[in-house]
């Protein structure tokens, strides 16, 4: 375990990844990380939105499942486009 921590903390590419992550620098690796992060957040947000919209009619579980399908459908293109725009503009 300590070997692993030592390896991770002394590996320059992993250090670079965390530096970029903290500084808000968008590279290919941090871009992929943010895309996955946005997908997870959007599933949670979509589930909340689905429950607010149709929780009473459909039942809370089905509304949350449908919402969490619709959320990422919208957010993944947003994150991809937005990160590219932020990187180059």
């Amino acid at each position: 375990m300590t070997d692993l921590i030592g390896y991770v903390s002394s590996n320059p590419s992993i250090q670079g990844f965390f530096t970029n992550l903290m500084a808000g620098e968008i590279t290919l690796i941090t871009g992929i990380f943010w895309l996955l992060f946005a997908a997870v957040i959007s599933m949670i947000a979509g589930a909340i939105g689905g429950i607010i919209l149709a929780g009473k009619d459909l039942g809370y579980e089905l509304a949350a499942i449908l919402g969490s399908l619709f959320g990422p459908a919208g957010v993944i293109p947003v994150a991809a486009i937005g990160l590219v725009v932020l990187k180059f503009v």
Partner: protein
Amino acid sequence: MLDLAWYSAKLFFKGKLFRNPGYFYRQLTLGVLIGSLLLVGLGETGLNLAFVITISSLVTGMMMPFLLKDVKMK
């Protein structure tokens, strides 16, 4: 739940999931447009990127079910 997601995705890529694909794509484009404006606008203010992405994903993700509420499944 994963079964449902996988089954819907298969139907979607075969083009058989929705009864009204035009409506779906129009609403999706609207949502993506609003979300991108929000993300880029917040990003240009120079806030922390983690904060920007969390806020815009939350707002867009909560908006999508409202935009797509009239979508008809087959």
